[in-house]
């Protein structure tokens, strides 16, 4: 029942912003290939993967390579001048619903505009490199064809999601991403822990999906269309159709996004999702899955920016809690991938905060740069894990000599993530800070700056514990094969330079800048762009980053690598307490006894040797304690407790209800009669 193909939506004429956008020519018209190819690869791998030399990897890589070509051409075209094209195929008419008399339709199609081109390219680029890397990483693993098939399904679903011109197709892609992530996280399903993690991810996402689906059902009928283009135009025009449902719909969609993008308190699945093979983590954290929520927010940005302004403070609050509170957890984790996972959660908080506060470009730019350095960090971590056969940093150390490529690229990624000028992370984070400040969330801006400090701190710790000091593992680590190292290098380059694409106020001649690229939408986004670099803000951000690195280095440098430093990792709550007790003794000795012994002679030494030391140690201890508190109380106990209580509550209720089933037929009959009687009494006597 496929009917009319519309190359451009009828609404295009109404959106004045789209008037100067080109339709993109051949590559935009055939962009659907990108949505379809991974599924072709998926089927092909399932069918013939086992019999191929690379066990299907070449099919997955090939499909992704073609996608990368398409996405790159579109990316370059869009640099020179904005592209907009939307194609919708009507699959079925649903009919009218709700207050408008417009016919709702179930449509499939694809959209090519600044936002989707950026995402196509990120998914294709990161995906391609991860696939190549995985070819090396998974050598000799179990179920390799199945793994690559699932990986293709993962990327393909994400592309369907990104290319979706309407909410329905987005949901299809969304569920596909969830399904594929379930398969991949549980790839080593022989271990119960892993399959539990897969189920946890699936369940948490499913809970959030209720919000997305309800939001769709609320917005679509009210507007009379599921299309994003119509939603954007209507929101831009402050249409009455959306008036009543905008805030509720926006919050419901946001709830959906919270699940996929791991916003507090729905972040619980993401750290456990480490159970999957490392390439999956890299893909999941950089390009697919977790970015889906941010993408949804960006896709429906006009709704939030123009109509649902009441929803935004709530969203910013949740995002800032996410970025700040959950960053601490990375401080106490021993599992290298877990450190990176908590870092992702925190960075997603940055992106969400930016988009929610009204910084469309800022959020997307951070998504863009984060994709490179986070993929790089995960692949680097994978390389290390591949070498030492352990996820734990307590089994690593001193690897910089054995694994120079991994080491240097990992350092680049870390510094970029920490936000040191002029690497990519600095510029994108700076823009988020500027947006928060400009939109009036000043307090949150300072929290975010503090968050940057924490980020730098834990990344320094991770680098120090992994690559410096002495090796504590077993066996002989060695550099990974070329197939794994060159993706690292390929990712390191954009991790360094990508930030230059969007320096405030700078336009690079014919290729313009990132703001212009993602601004190619059906209506102008109308978000804030700083005209020039705000040097004071940049300085604060930089100071926070450098301070974090310095503190991290001070505490975890090879010289400080003592048993107490380890204890701080392994006994997060207990250790600081012990440490404090020690302080009191110390204070008593040095602060009370010594000054009396030699008040003046020791004064300089005291200031020099103690105050500075104490401040540094104290700051470190407090941060670590906070991390321990958040991790131990809030995450491990609080949230899990909440979830367990919810689960236990329902199970408990189920248990109580179960007792109703006594087995005695006359009790059943009694319930029957009383039930009937109550119905009559309720609806006869009361009304």
């Amino acid at each position, binding site marked *: 029942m496929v009917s009319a193909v519309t190359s451009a939506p009828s609404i295009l004429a109404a959106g004045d912003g789209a008037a100067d956008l080109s339709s993109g020519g051949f590559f935009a018209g055939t962009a659907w290939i990108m949505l379809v190819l991974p599924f072709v690869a998926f089927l092909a791998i399932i069918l013939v993967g086992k019999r191929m030399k690379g066990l299907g990897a070449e099919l997955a890589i090939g499909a992704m390579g073609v996608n990368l070509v398409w996405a790159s051409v579109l990316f370059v075209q869009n640099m020179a001048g904005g592209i907009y094209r939307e194609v919708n195929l009507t699959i079925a008419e649903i009919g009218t619903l709700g207050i408008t008399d417009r016919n709702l339709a179930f449509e499939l199609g694809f959209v090519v505009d600044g936002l989707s081109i950026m995402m196509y390219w990120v998914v294709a680029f990161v995906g391609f490199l991860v696939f190549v890397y995985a070819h090396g990483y998974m050598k000799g693993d179990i179920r390799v064809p199945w793994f690559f098939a699932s990986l293709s399904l993962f990327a393909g679903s994400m592309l369907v999601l990104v290319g979706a011109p309407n909410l329905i197709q987005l949901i299809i892609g969304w569920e596909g991403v969830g399904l594929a992530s379930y398969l991949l996280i549980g790839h080593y399903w022989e271990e119960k822990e892993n399959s539990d993690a897969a189920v946890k991810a699936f369940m948490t996402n499913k809970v959030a999906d209720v919000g997305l689906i309800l939001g769709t059902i609320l917005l679509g009928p009210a507007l009379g269309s599921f299309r994003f283009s119509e939603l954007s135009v209507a929101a831009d025009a402050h249409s009455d159709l959306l008036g009543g449902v905008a805030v509720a719909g926006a919050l419901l969609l946001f709830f959906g996004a919270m699940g996929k993008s791991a916003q507090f308190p729905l972040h619980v699945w993401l750290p456990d999702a480490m159970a999957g093979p490392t390439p999956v983590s890299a893909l999941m954290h950089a390009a697919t899955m977790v970015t889906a929520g941010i993408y949804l927010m960006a896709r429906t940005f006009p709704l939030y920016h123009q109509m649902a302004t009441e929803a935004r403070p709530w969203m910013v609050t949740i995002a800032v809690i996410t970025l700040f509170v959950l960053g601490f957890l990375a401080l106490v984790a021993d599992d290298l991938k877990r450190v990176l996972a908590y870092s992702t959660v925190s960075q997603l908080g940055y992106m969400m905060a930016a988009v929610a506060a009204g910084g469309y470009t800022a959020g997307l730019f951070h998504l863009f740069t984060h994709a490179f350095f986070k993929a790089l960090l995960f692949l680097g971590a994978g390389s290390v894990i591949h070498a030492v056969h352990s996820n734990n940093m307590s089994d690593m150390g001193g690897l910089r000599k054995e694994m120079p490529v991994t080491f240097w690229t990992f350092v680049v990624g870390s510094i970029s993530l920490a936000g040191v000028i002029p690497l990519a992370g600095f510029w994108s984070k700076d823009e988020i800070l500027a947006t928060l400040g400009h939109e009036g969330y000043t307090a949150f801006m300072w929290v975010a700056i503090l968050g940057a400090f924490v980020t730098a701190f834990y990344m320094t710790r991770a680098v120090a514990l992994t690559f410096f000091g002495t090796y504590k593992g077993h066996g002989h680590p060695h550099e990974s094969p070329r197939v794994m190292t060159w993706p690292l290098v390929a990712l390191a380059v954009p991790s360094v330079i990508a930030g230059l694409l969007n320096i405030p106020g700078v336009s690079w001649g014919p290729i313009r800048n990132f703001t212009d690229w993602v601004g190619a939408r059906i209506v102008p986004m109308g978000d804030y762009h700083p005209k020039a670099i705000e040097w004071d803000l940049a300085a604060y951000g930089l100071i926070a980053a450098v301070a974090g690195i310095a503190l991290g280095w001070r505490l975890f440098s090879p010289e400080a690598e003592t048993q107490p430093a380890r204890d701080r990792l392994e006994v997060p709550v207990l250790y600081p307490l012990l440490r404090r007790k020690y302080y009191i003794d110390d204070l008593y000795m040095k602060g009370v006894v010594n000054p009396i012994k030699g008040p003046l002679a020791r004064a300089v030494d005291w200031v020099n040797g103690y105050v500075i030391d104490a401040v540094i140690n104290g700051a470190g201890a407090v941060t670590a304690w906070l991390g321990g508190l958040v991790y131990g109380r809030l995450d491990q106990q609080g949230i899990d407790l909440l979830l367990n209580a919810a689960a236990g509550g329902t199970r408990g209720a189920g248990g109580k209800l*179960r*007792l109703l*089933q*006594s*087995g*005695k*037929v*006359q009790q059943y*009959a*009694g319930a029957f*009669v009383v039930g009937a009687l109550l119905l009559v009494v309720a609806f006869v006597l009361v009304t």
Partner: protein
Amino acid sequence: MVLSQFLILGALMFSIGVYGLLSRRNAVTVLLAVELMLAAVNINLIAFEAFWNTAAAHGQIFAIFVITIAAAEVGIGLAIILLVFRNRASGNIDQLDLMRW
């Protein structure tokens, strides 16, 4: 004669049937109680039929169907009771709690 006297009589019979169904231990007596409830239905039907006094006599036809179906149900019920009795040597239904929860 007024209609309500029959309806109230019907209600009384129905309630007595409910009591019997809920309180009797023996399966056969439970079945007897159900027959009382169906008798109440028939009283209602015939009384309403008399009240409307239409030519087509739907109420009486309905009542005859109820009687026939009830007879079939008794046959079915006794067969089941017999079956249970054969396996358990008891006609008491409050001992039937093999399956619960």
